[in-house]
């Protein structure tokens, strides 16, 4: 455990200039990990908020912090994890040794972790706690057609892993902008109960407004990211065509994502005991 005395954690995320909820989960995970006192320091940095990714290079005093583990709070590998973050943080790869003596370790994005599958299942169970799983169609929603992002692939992978558990009547990966479309949920599913879990890092325009409209539980413009969008998660289940529809908040808001970040940080720094 001694290595942690000089190791800091940097959680990097996208952030937003228009959505106040975008950075909230990242800040919450950082606060929780800070509370656990596992690292010498825990900081966040954002592409679109403060402190910036560029600021992050100066957040840790090299006299006291010798190692920095960087964990991208992103749902998948893609443009940001492969291009933007390494460029802005001046990382050379998985391990970067700086002239000031600090070593920075670049971890995998949160969405890649195997625990994410478990979180999705738990979130589905918590959203519809009284419904037998074999009467549920579980829909994992991603954006789809993201430029250079692989969130659609990640959602498909998670759906396949949950399907393999054999607990749900159906498990489908659906998308906002490509087939299979989330708006076709009535045709895609045949069970009396449907649980929808957005596969996003934070809540915002997509989970507050776009997906509810596509599901048919909200009219266009009925809510906004800056308004009371979170109400959609509280008001279910929705009765539509003799079916009950349960709608969860984005998976990245789950407090247990903090566990994933800790594990990825340890793994990145080569400190995870379970690492091969």
């Amino acid at each position, binding site marked *: 455990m001694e290595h942690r005395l000089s190791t800091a954690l940097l959680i990097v995320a996208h952030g*937003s*200039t*228009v*959505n*106040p909820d975008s950075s909230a989960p990242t*800040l919450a995970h950082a*606060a929780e990990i800070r509370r656990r006192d596992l690292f010498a320091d825990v*900081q*966040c*940095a954002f*592409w*679109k*908020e*403060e*402190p*910036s990714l*560029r*600021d*992050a*290079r*100066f*957040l*840790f*005093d*090299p006299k*006291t912090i010798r190692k920095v583990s960087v964990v991208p709070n992103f749902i998948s590998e893609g*443009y940001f994890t492969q*291009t*933007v973050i390494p*460029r802005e943080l001046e990382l050379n790869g998985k391990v970067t040794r700086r002239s*000031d003596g600090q070593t920075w370790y670049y971890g995998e994005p949160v969405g890649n972790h195997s625990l994410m599958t478990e979180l999705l299942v738990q979130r589905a169970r918590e959203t519809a706690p009284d419904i037998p799983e074999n009467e549920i169609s579980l829909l994992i929603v991603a954006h789809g057609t993201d*430029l250079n992002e692989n969130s659609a692939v990640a959602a498909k992978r998670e759906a396949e892993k949950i399907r393999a558990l054999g607990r749900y009547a159906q498990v489908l990966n659906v998308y906002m902008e490509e087939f299979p479309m989330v708006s076709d949920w009535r045709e895609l599913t045949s069970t009396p109960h449907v649980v929808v879990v957005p596969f996003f890092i934070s809540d915002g325009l997509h989970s507050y407004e776009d997906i509810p409209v596509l599901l048919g539980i909200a009219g266009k413009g009925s809510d906004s990211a*800056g308004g009371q969008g979170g109400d959609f998660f509280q008001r279910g289940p929705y009765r539509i065509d003799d079916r009950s529809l349960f709608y969860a908040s984005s998976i990245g808001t789950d407090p247990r994502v903090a566990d994933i970040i800790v594990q990825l940080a340890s793994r990145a720094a080569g400190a995870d005991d379970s690492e091969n």
Partner: protein
Amino acid sequence: MPDPTETTLATVFNNREAIGQILIQRTPLAGFVLCHRDDQTNDHVETFAQAEDAIEIARYDDDGNYRPLKTAPNLRHGWRLNLADADQLGRTIDYFYPGRLAMIEAWNQNRLITTSLRDTLNRQSGMYRIAAKISDEQIEEVVGNFCRSSDGCLRTILWKRDGEGGVASTELPPEKFDPGFDQTGKNRRAVPLLCQEGCSLLVNECREAVKGETNE
């Protein structure tokens, strides 16, 4: 051994009473009271007691609009934050002005590196790559409008326009580049909010200028 947080804060706040728009007063019991600098004599304020309360206070302006730039001079009024110790003070300042204390510490240790705006823009990719096409004349105007302390940003600019050392914008007064100057214009001893590199919002403004989409 002194607590590193206290040591840092003592160095940063030595003989200073404010940071950005926030007034910081010590209490007899080694605590701190923070409020908006305009509210020093205002007793009709909402009182808070946790560092994390600063997150919500800093999130929206007086009109309820989201504040994407925390160093913009639009911190909301009407609050007072009672903090128990230096550790809470450090965290609170970091919620109000994320990363700024660390930049001051790096600056004090001569390890803060500035990046010219041209270098920042030339580094961009994807939808922001076009921002590098901005002319020097456009930079003058964009930086002059976007970064000015009166209604743009309270940071003290340390970066240059280009590798030749050109000033960021001659439309800004010389005090905008002086860490000893109180950017709120109140002429008090304030901790500077240092800006070592143009932010993502400025990069976006440069992109808009190139695309001819500014609202000027």
